[in-house]
């Protein structure tokens, strides 16, 4: 039934069970069950022991209960840290990218059946300003509806040109490029430009569209 040299394997399985138990929402149930069995077995063993011993365990000192005030303090501290993080982020943005000069470029992907995004290059007034190589996870994040901020910078007021070159694979795994050039006017408010890679069912290809956001 049991071979000592298989101990390592058993530990691996035990680890898997544990990590899995943690991975699911029912972890609490599992933990309670496991601890219950441990307790019940302990109880059984102690019962077995009690038959042999005359002394009971009344001498054991009970530990204090869970301190909720510490939990509350930690939660309060967490909240403070998050608020500070947010305030610092806003301060950084106000300082480095004031609205009067701010320009942001976002990328989104709609479905992504006809175009598997691999990388993107961004030019602002014919100068390379950003490039991004996508991992599988990042691509999936976009395909699941996420919007990525590709670039954030500063620009003078006036007319500017943005060029984005998307490189990826088509349905037949051939390398294809999709490019778009967009002229925009920078005024007092921050400029936010979304580059949308969208599937076109009519020609079974992906197109890039531009959408400008305004607050």
């Amino acid at each position, binding site marked *: 039934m049991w071979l000592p040299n298989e101990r390592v394997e058993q530990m691996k399985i035990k680890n898997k*069970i544990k990590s899995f138990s943690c991975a699911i929402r029912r972890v609490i149930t599992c933990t309670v069950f496991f601890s219950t*069995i441990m307790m019940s077995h302990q109880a059984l063993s102690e019962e*077995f022991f009690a038959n042999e011993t005359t002394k009971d*365990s009344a001498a054991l000192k009970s530990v204090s209960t869970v301190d909720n005030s510490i939990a509350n303090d930690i939660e309060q501290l967490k909240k403070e840290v998050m608020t500070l993080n947010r305030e610092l982020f806003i301060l950084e943005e106000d300082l480095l990218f004031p609205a009067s000069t701010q320009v942001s470029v976002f990328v989104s992907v709609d479905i992504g059946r006809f175009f598997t995004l691999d990388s993107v290059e961004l030019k602002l007034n014919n100068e390379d300003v950003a490039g991004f190589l996508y991992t599988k996870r990042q691509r*999936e*994040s976009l395909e699941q509806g*996420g919007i990525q901020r590709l670039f954030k910078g500063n620009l003078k007021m006036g007319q500017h040109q943005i060029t984005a070159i998307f490189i990826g694979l088509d349905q037949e795994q051939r390398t294809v490029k999709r490019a778009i050039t967009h002229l925009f006017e920078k005024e007092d408010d921050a400029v936010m430009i979304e580059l949308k890679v969208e599937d076109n069912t009519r020609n079974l290809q992906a197109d890039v569209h531009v*959408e*400008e956001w305004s607050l």
Partner: protein
Amino acid sequence: MQLTVTKRLFFNYIIHAVNVRKKVTRSMLISSLIYRYFLATTCCLMVLLFSFLTADKVYAKEQLSKPTQLLPSQLSEKFYRQALYFYFQNKPDEALRQLTINQDYFSKTPVHESLFTAGLQISQGLHQDAQVLLEKLSLTTDLAKTSDDNILMQKSDHSTIESNLKKEALKVIVFLELAAQKIAEQNLSAAQTVLANITSLPEQYQAQYYVMQQLIAWPQKPDTDKFMLDKVSKTRLESLISESNNGLVTQHNSTAYILLNEALREMNQQEFASAEGKLKRLQVFTWQEEKGNFWQQLFADKTSGNQLLTGLKQLEQNGINHYAQLLLAQLYIEQGLFQQSYQQLEKFPKDTPFTEQALFLFGYSAFKLQQYNIAEVILNTLITQYPYANFTQQSWVLSAQQYTAQNQLNKALNRYLQIEEYYQTKQHELSEFSKALTAQKDLLFFYRALNESNEGVEVNNTTDKVSSDNSINEFWLTLSLRQTDIANLYQQLQSVEKLAKQLQAQQNKSHWLASTIELNVARQTTIRDKHKSTNYEQLLSKLLDKKDQLAILLGKAKSLGDGKLFADKTKKKLLTRIEKSQSALAFIEDNSQGSPSIQAYQHRLSRVEGVLAWQLQQEFSTRYWQTRQSLNVLERTYNNTLQQYKQVDELLAQHSPLPLLSAKHALIANKTTSSQSKANQLKTRINSKLLANINLFIENEHIKITEFLLFNQRAMANIIEKLNQQEAL
């Protein structure tokens, strides 16, 4: 591949054509047709081939489009999707930050966004905030629901009903997750309060809801009458409970846990027959394919990521099966049915998390059935291979008892002596652990050491052979971590440590921002000073003069057409020299009464002048154009300088945002320092509490071991007495 096929086709056609050409002699007409066919086909194929070849290459398309202006509601959705991207990148803190920033921008937050926020808050441990948000959300959605109901009465919009149902389900998920975390914190009353918020329960969450109620009510049976559910949900839940009690419902996997909980409760209440039936059903339980949705994954424990693998599902199913089997064996032992428990454990698989427990119960059953050989092997395995397991000391005692029962008194005595040594070693280890603990102020040190030495091995692995003092300390620490209160305090200590690190990172960033503000202020001051010290008006007037001079020159050149106007320095010198020479010659002529040589000089001089004038006239148009260009450039420069000057003037007159930013920064810096000191205080508080609890654990362990030692010595005395009696006989 396609290209190769095309090439082959192409060559086939060529071969075919060559064959055709060989038959020319047969018929000229046929040959001509075939030849034309060949040409046409070849051309088509060439086009096709070209298209295939170019298909591999880059296809770039350039577009020039006009931007689309968005409505604020659409924009809010875009911002929400940015938070989603962060979430998918496993950056929940950044996602939450993005959502809070969104809330500042937009006055109205959609329900799904609020639910997302609440979910993220729960995952980040901000339960109070999540609860407040959910309560607020409950009120608003209730109001929205009533208004929606009115609209539905009129329009009966199907999509609106669906959307409301979805939102309701999402709300239930968030409440369930919050309750789950409260249960994990052992805060059962809070969990009960959270669950009371759920009034309508979708079918797929019934089992989960009931499991939580079971955990809260343990060891009692949950009272369904006290559930705050509506009639429909309550009826459905009751039918699910009765179904799961009568037979295993595999529609939802959580029903297995309902059954398991119920079996445990019944065992606790000595209702063995009913528990046995349930455990037997669980022993053969098979997992159903069930896909968790996005929201469930979102609010679940962080380690879950987005993957629920089938293999792991299988492991969980096996876990339930084996656990039920073990419980069944225990149930038989409790009833004194050792044969049944023996049979159950005989076929117990070896690769489970319950192997140690199963081994002990198996050994115990074998001992009770007087199968001493098997019992001896099993107990020895536990003693030698699991020296630090929970059941090892019981195994020692059981082994000694077995020898006594077998009347092998010497062996029994020897075993009791070993047990005494074992307990003494344990007490020594505990004392060493206590000393090491007192010496080390930062208790996280032990935990870190444990993680480093157990790379990839489970933290509470208590059964590996422990050799060094450090490993022994780690072992006792791990054992102490099995106590819920100690484990909770350890987790809290880790959380505070993590927060302290975050605060440190934020402080570094704050310093960097402070220096950036400082640099900007310095730069602005330099510009202001330079602007004040430089006489821009004078510079501008000089530029204007230069511009006017050029304009006059061009005007003259245009009206006179004289090339001399654009003469350069050398030519100007020559012109002046000629002029001087002419005046000198004129003077000599006046005074020398018509010398022929003077006339010759004059003649030569006018020839030189003519050549020079001709040269200048040749360059006139070029020079005129160049001067015109220079004037244009000068004009542009002048205008730009003037504009820039005005702009700088305006900017310097404007109120700079830097003092405001600096004030904001100072506020943040103060807050950071205050939070840091709070974190340190909290760390010290938790550390001391943890130390006290571990010391208490050590004390209790000492008491227990002393008790065991006493029992052991008594048992040993009995054996010695028996041995003496035997010797006397």
